[in-house]
């Protein structure tokens, strides 16, 4: 219940009637819950997910389920994904579908959570470029995870280069070389175990996490791999914007 209480406390609702909140909840429900293969419109019949209307649900049950989801089913935890005002509204709406005509709303609305500082236009563009899907695997997020987006092939970005030139010239001492069956390739070593060696093969993107028998591979420090070629799809301006984004989110 803690999570739900926190969420309700954090909800920001202007002076609204229950009716307004429920109406907003109906809108949230239509777009979030009755969309795709999940609950049908107004929860009236089963879609890909169960019918929700006239099930005799209590508001507490609804609030818990919306916030936490149902483990082992497709019902997700919306606690992390819906803005608090939408959470309150959609819970109230589903309550009305279950005969609760006057769903309870948070009596005292807490102060708004401190909003993250807005990104500058350049940093906003940098965020889009960082994970720009139109570049296929030639995007930063193929190897870096920032703010939950991207594949963490590389360890977290600790030091942000000063400018695009420095980003291109970046030395990568973590990248070494491996030779298998006479072929030498740039690698990022992940684990050496008695029975197996695991490393990212950086020959192509997306990097391949390979696991081989220790005897089948020889490794050495250094490589011919260059960060500059991994970021070749971006222009200097693009890279400057990406750096602005990274500086903004790792302040």
């Amino acid at each position, binding site marked *: 219940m803690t999570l739900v209480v926190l969420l309700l406390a954090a909800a920001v609702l202007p002076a609204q009637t229950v009716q307004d909140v429920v109406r907003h909840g109906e809108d949230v429900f239509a777009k979030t819950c009755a969309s795709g293969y999940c609950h049908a419109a107004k929860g009236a019949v089963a879609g*890909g997910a169960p019918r929700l209307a006239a099930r005799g649900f209590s508001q507490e049950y609804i609030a818990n389920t919306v916030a936490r*989801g149902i483990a082992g089913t497709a019902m997700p935890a919306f606690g992390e994904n819906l803005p608090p005002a939408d959470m309150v509204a959609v819970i109230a709406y589903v309550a009305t579908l279950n005969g609760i005509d006057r769903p309870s709303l948070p009596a005292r609305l807490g102060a708004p959570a401190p909003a993250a500082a807005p990104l500058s236009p350049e940093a906003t563009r940098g965020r889009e470029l960082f994970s720009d*899907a139109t570049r296929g695997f030639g995007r930063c997020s193929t190897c870096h995870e920032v703010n939950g*987006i991207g594949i963490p092939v590389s360890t977290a970005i600790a030091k942000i280069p000063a400018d695009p030139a420095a980003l291109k010239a970046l030395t990568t001492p973590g990248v070494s070389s491996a030779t298998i069956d006479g072929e030498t390739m740039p690698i990022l070593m992940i684990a050496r175990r008695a029975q197996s060696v695991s490393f990212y093969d950086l020959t192509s993107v997306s990097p391949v996490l390979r696991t081989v028998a220790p005897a089948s591979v020889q490794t050495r420090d250094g490589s011919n791999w260059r960060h500059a070629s991994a970021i070749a799809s971006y222009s200097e301006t693009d890279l400057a914007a990406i750096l602005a984004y990274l500086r903004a989110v790792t302040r």
Partner: protein
Amino acid sequence: MSLAIYDRQMRIALLLIMAAFCQAQDAGATHADWLHYGGTPFSWRYSALDQINTANVQNLVPAWIFQTGDYVENLQATPIVVGGVMYLITPRAQVFALDAAAGKMIWHYRWPAPRLGAPGTIADFNGNRGLAVSAGKVIFGTADNYLVALDQKTGQEAWRVSVDDTKQCGCSITAAPLVVKDKVVVGGNGGDAAHRGYLTAFNINNGRLAWRWYVIPGPGEKGNETWKGDSWKFGGGAPWLTGSFDPDLNLIYWGTGNAASDFFDADRVPDKTKNRDINLYTASVVALDADTGKLRWHYQEVPDDLWDFDSAYEVLLMDRQVRGRMRKILVHMNKSGLTFVLDRTTGEYLGSFNVAEVFNWIAGVTENGTLVGRNEPQLGKTGLFCPSAAGAKSWNSTSYSPRTGFLYAPVNEICENVTSNDDKPKEGRTYMNGAFPMVLPPNRNTYSHVDAWDPVTGKRAWSYPYRFVLLSSMLSTAGDVVFTGDPEGNFFALNARTGTRLWSFQTGAGHRGAAVSYSVNVRQYIATTTGWQQTVVGGGALGLFPQENWRQGSTLVVFALPGASK
């Protein structure tokens, strides 16, 4: 020339003709092994084994049963059998190697709990439809968009490669990969989200990227002009099932998904007056060069798809006499039930037939394949459309028997009430722009049927009606038996020539997967997955019959004849 020599030459010529015919007849058949998702890369789901046949099928008994223990969703994967070992994958990508004669576990691999995608998107559902085995590797896709290769002997991981970022793309991999020579090709879903679909090929030995083909052409590429503005970036088209491969033509064939958003087209269609090639290459069958992934030809089945009528389903390759000429054809069922016959060398339209009995989305199809009398969802109005987005057929496969020449199809008669909206896309989030609760069509008391269709004449030879829905794949065999399962738990056999029900066994849970046939030490087995799907189409279908209780589960049941040698 003496008569004897003439006779001998005639006989050789006849033998050669027969050999060529048998080759064509046999190209899509499986024998002892079941090596591919569709049986062979021709995707017939047909076994040449005939130990089990119409005369003795009623004697089938369970030989062994395997419970996967992964009960989060149903077992829906087509098992693969190689040299007496079965490879099976569960909804959360646990992989098992089993002794195919005794069911004993040889090894077990467990993919770590994936990072799922945005709630409510398809990337947030569990499910896996199969794996591929080749070159000493067992290869499969995951809910968090990795392609993974295990050592076939030990089950130890050999490589894994990220295909996309689930947190961003609203996509996941549920399809079985297709092995094409030294590469493994895999499609993903996500075409109901703001996402741009693609196929990706990797080197089977080391997991390195070989090629990627985007369903939707980028700026400057031919076909991009069939998209309005930037809509190509999020236009869907995800090829979410498994394709086919013709080694002689060196072409792979794949069906692509619906255009996004599904039920609203004003933001993606630049010219509403056109009736061909709109939003390429969504809702199409494409032929790609197997080595480079370059597009050779395309045929768009549903231009400007407004009904979520993907063309993502299996592509059956066969050689058949068409209007007096032996041709290399492909047979492909669209989700609407409209089934296309194309020349697979050129993509030429040869004909089509409609397997759905209840339909109102189009009035018909012209002689050259153009859809006419389109009945489209209208913004601000709720309309009844048949078939539903669940499909006249779902993703479960048809089967083709070269002995009967029939395509066996599980067909559902379900409609839906579509209310569309004009929401804007948000990358990786659901982008269907419609609610579409399913409803049963009036004045019927059966809502599905197993059909036998001659794909060349487009005639239905027989139809076996069933009360509820049929959402499991078909298997046909040289014993002239057709197998499939129903949601009530019955696994049953029909006579391939007449549709007469020959045998049935209650397996204890609903069927929403696939059956295969194989042999070990000359004993023929029939294996079926069980377990009703609780989400997406399985869950939706159950909602139509609320008095029913179609059980979930995740169990493989394997049958054989009691008298067969062991």
